[in-house]
């Protein structure tokens, strides 16, 4: 379980953004305190070596793992922000915060959640029988975000952090492609994640008077999105993944 705390010029951060910050050296990290996870998450954290397949298949399975996490996060986040009522895959009933569908965070959680499901389903289809979701231990994977413990601000913060990590995760995976076959699609998904990240950052700033950067500023990494290596991404994501 990762629950270390780091400090930024803005506020205290823990625990998810620790990896993004460490790897990218950017101030794009989340800036609220997230509670510790409740369920028995995978430990030690997953590594890229554990992702099934070789070459391009391995990279696509890595992407699928992240898209599956994102898709489930959006489902749970929408329930938390609105009426709640449904149990997540771990059987935990989510309590809703009762926000209106017209609120910007609710509106875009619904919209982007649908897009993430389509990304996930595209990868499942592309992988066919090679999908990691068809083989143990990933075929029983569940996601625990301790959603009932998150405030509205923490929910949006988590969406921002996960989307932001996704942008860098795709960049970090590109060198592992053996062929160029899926580069175009990976770039198409990655840019969409970047759009989501920027929009969520904008909404977060408006709702909570924060100053998350919409995109890397010119004086940080030359204004270019940073890449994060797969093992670092999986270490961060593992705190939400329950296997078995």
């Amino acid at each position, binding site marked *: 379980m990762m629950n270390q705390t780091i400090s930024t010029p803005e506020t205290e951060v823990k625990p998810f953004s620790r990896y993004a910050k460490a790897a990218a050296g950017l101030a794009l990290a989340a800036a609220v305190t997230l509670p510790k996870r409740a369920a028995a998450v995978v430990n030690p954290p997953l590594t890229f070596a554990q992702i099934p397949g070789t070459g391009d298949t391995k990279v696509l399975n890595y992407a699928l793992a992240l898209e599956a996490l994102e898709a489930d996060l959006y489902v749970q986040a929408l329930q938390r922000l609105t009426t709640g009522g449904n149990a997540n895959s771990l059987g935990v009933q989510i309590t809703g915060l009762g926000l209106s569908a017209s609120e*910007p965070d609710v*509106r875009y959680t619904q*919209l*982007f959640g*649908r*897009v993430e499901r*389509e*990304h996930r389903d*595209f990868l499942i289809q592309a992988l066919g029988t090679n999908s990691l979701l068809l083989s143990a231990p990933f075929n029983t994977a569940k996601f625990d975000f301790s959603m009932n413990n998150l405030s509205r601000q923490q929910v949006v913060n988590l969406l921002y952090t996960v989307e932001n990590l996704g*942008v860098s995760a*795709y*960049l*970090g995976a*590109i*060198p*592992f*492609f053996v062929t160029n076959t899926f*580069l*175009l*699609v*990976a*770039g*198409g*998904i*990655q*840019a*969409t*994640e*970047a*759009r*989501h*990240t*920027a*929009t969520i950052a*904008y909404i977060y700033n408006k709702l909570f008077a924060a100053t998350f950067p*919409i*995109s*890397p500023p010119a004086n940080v*990494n*030359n*204004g*270019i*999105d*940073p*890449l994060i290596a797969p093992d670092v991404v999986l270490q961060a994501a593992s705190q939400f993944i329950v296997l078995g």
Partner: protein
Amino acid sequence: MDSSSFLNDPVSRRAFMARMTAAGLGTAAAMLLAGCGNGDDNNSNVIPNANFPGIPGRTVTEVVLNYALTLEILEADLYRQALNKATGRALTENLAANSSAYTLTVSGGGLADPQAAFAYLRDFAFVEAAHRDFLTTAIQASGGTPVTRRTAGYKQLVATAVAIHSTEARHSSIIDYLLEPTGNPGPEFLTGDRRVTDRANAENTPSEDTFQYYLDPPTVIAALPAYNV
């Protein structure tokens, strides 16, 4: 010519620049030479590593040479494949030992003088291969490790290009949002766009906003004059 003479000889550098410019890589060449020196011919300048992300090398000179080699490998490979295509060979065939081995076997494709075009294609393929080999030898001679085809260095460059691309996407989405706060800041299909899943000139399915679209370079270039003053 060794690497030091290349770096210190203004004539060689001018010739190199001219050739790179002719190949449409003038900007890349300028950046390379800016890294080699600071306007005169000494090699004392220091460049930040961020200017050459993913390019290996123990010294600034080695990084710059590997950057140049990366471009040369790309060019040499482009010409090799084009020559194979023009002569009916498999694209994967290596460059022949002698240029006389090649004869044009495809139609002229609307070119006014296909034989002249083929002759240039054939000659340039061997020239680019020679440049690639020269840089490889120069780096090895100084004890360095030259980049090779399809190494992580290549994909790192691609990753950097995609990283710039996604930063543009962030900007685009926020401009979208500012123009239409209740709209969809996701990818939007516009005239000329292609989808990444099958390169078709059509909207994504099942939903328009699922994947970023792209434009072919000629489409982009054709659109530019409307904004030139």
